[in-house]
């Protein structure tokens, strides 16, 4: 893949953020991973294997879909990069393929992963099955219960899925459980981390594997319009999907809109707005923005979408936020659900709750759009996984009746 200048830094620091704040027992594994990644990221054979897997297994390039009705109604040229058309239904497969190829190169035999919405776990279980490796997935118990269909698929793919009952039983606790597993088995296990967070090299490595998304957006816009888009909207959990879409545009004029989970309110524990309500901290191996209480403890978070329900944000995005290169926005649970409904009815597309945050923010900004503006929504995933959450929100009686019928039959 073409190199992105921002990712050339191999120290693991982006401005003051990033680093490798980990116990010494997992340092050899991280050092070996960084060395393997740095040696192979531009290796012709490795790149060919990666491109082949993207194309033949995942189905890249993903569609760049004009949102015709929304464009007409909002007065701009609006497109969606449909990462939901990837195998397993989201962008997560991009870094899973990249990482499992590295795990193979390193001779690892076992894959560990954490998952929030289940999309990363599902994608990890998929590549582990494809590449013949044992797989253990940690999932906060709250997420395990609200994303049960993905748990089923992961298990069908041969993975062991472990619900984590500590803390607030969400993504953060799954990350900690996965790290603890790695501490216990550093020589055989490969931690296939699901976002652009964690100790170096994960942030820059996953951003590298995800940058295929932004490169495709740029190529399409240049061939279709002869220029780059005016704005890109992407949701931000850990940051892998947003970085993937943004990175090729850092030196261009495109406005990069990073949209977080506004949840159900402004109080601590009601949202996951790290940029505006968090502050720099050092946790889970990296220096970046984190939601914290007044004594420096990590705060609970909330979002209707498990993939955005996370306390920290990528060191790369933390740096880009401080420098003013990205702009932050948010959408509440309610606005997100409305956005899902609107896209379904107006465009025939059902997107993931995570991606719908970006759409909701786009809709809120639409008063300021110009007719000739090119706006790209990064649709990070499709919405089928959210069936029960969406049904509970839109048709609670129908869900209850369906559940009763299922139990009876």
């Amino acid at each position: 893949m073409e190199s992105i200048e921002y990712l050339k830094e191999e120290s693991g620091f982006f401005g003051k953020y990033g680093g490798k704040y980990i116990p010494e027992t997992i340092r050899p594994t991280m050092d070996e991973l960084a060395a393997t990644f740095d040696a192979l990221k531009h290796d012709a054979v490795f790149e060919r294997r990666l491109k082949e897997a993207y194309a033949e297994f995942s189905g890249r390039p993903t569609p760049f879909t004009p949102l015709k009705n929304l464009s007409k109604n909002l007065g701009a040229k609006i497109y969606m990069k449909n990462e939901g058309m990837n195998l397993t239904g989201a962008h997560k497969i991009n870094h899973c393929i990249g990482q499992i190829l590295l795990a193979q190169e390193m001779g690892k035999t076992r894959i560990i992963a954490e998952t929030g919405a289940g999309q990363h776990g599902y994608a990890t279980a998929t590549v582990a099955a494809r590449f013949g490796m044992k797989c253990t997935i940690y999932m906060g118990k709250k997420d395990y219960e609200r994303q049960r269909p993905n748990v089923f698929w992961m298990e069908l793919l041969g993975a062991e899925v472990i619900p984590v009952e500590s803390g607030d039983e969400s993504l953060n606790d799954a990350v900690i459980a996965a790290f603890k597993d790695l501490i216990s088995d550093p020589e055989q296990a490969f931690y296939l981390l699901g976002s652009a967070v964690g100790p170096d090299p994960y942030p820059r490595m996953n951003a590298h594997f995800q940058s295929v998304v932004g490169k495709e957006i740029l190529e399409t816009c240049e061939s279709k319009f002869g220029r780059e888009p005016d704005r890109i909207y992407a949701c931000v959990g850990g940051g892998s999907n947003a970085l993937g879409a943004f990175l090729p545009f850092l030196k261009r004029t495109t406005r990069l809109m990073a949209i977080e989970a506004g949840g159900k309110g402004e109080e601590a524990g009601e949202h996951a707005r790290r940029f505006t309500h968090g502050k720099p901290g050092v946790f889970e191996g990296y220096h970046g923005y984190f939601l914290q209480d007044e004594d420096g403890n990590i705060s609970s978070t909330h979002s209707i979408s498990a993939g955005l329900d996370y306390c920290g944000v990528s060191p790369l995005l933390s740096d880009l936020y401080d420098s003013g290169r990205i702009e932050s926005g948010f959408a509440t649970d309610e606005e997100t659900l409305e956005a899902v409904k609107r896209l379904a009815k107006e465009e025939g597309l059902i997107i993931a709750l995570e991606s719908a945050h970006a759409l909701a923010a786009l809709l809120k900004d639409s008063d300021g759009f110009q007719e000739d503006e090119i706006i790209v929504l990064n649709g990070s995933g499709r919405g089928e996984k959210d069936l029960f959450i969406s049904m509970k929100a839109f048709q609670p009686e129908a869900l209850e009746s369906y559940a009763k019928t299922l139990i009876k039959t």
Partner: protein
Amino acid sequence: MKEIIAHTVLGYPNQEECLKQLEFWNDIGLRHWELQVPFSHPTADGPLITEANKEGLENFKSLESLLNFIENIEARFPEVRIEYMSYAQKLFFLAGSDHAGRIKALKNKHWIVPDLPLDDELTQGIGDKLGLRFIPVIGLNTSKERIKILLGHQPDWLYLMSGFQTTGKQFQLSERLIDKVEEIRGMDSVKIGLGFGIRSLEDVNKAFEIADFAILGSIFMEKRKRGEFESFTQNLAGY
């Protein structure tokens, strides 16, 4: 001289009981402690210590009251050597807070922070701001080159994890562990503390065959839950 280092979490199971436990240790001559400053997400700890962190946090209304407790301990047990333990986020926060001066004023200066690498600029900044010295925590897979780097920071002693595990698992005097200790001894005269999984007097004696300190943590919590804390601890008197 061989020593047991007795670990507990500050404020666990409550302030009063925590103080009584320290008093008991002091009375029987266990006078080298590792006191963990509770944190919301103790990444490298097993379930018992994780739970103790949660209870510890709940038992202090604020960081202010926790610092009062620590200062009281230092004043009450002036003969005891204390190493404090916590995680990177807590120290990073403290360094940037109004409490930095109080940490700097503590008599005991050594901290065990497993996720702060000694050779990192941010770590060094935190150390300078809070007036701390760090004890490195290494594993059986830590390379000779890496140990050399860590020893270059002249730590007071090295904390060696006995195996690949979080706290609370089984202790083994494995061949690999013995080799690692020999490797360190061949490099430097630094004292070595062995931790993770030491659960009995027998384990302590095994640890003393190769190390200077034996660190006991979650076993005290386990014994407390079974009502056997005092009888178990009494056996350790004289170490």
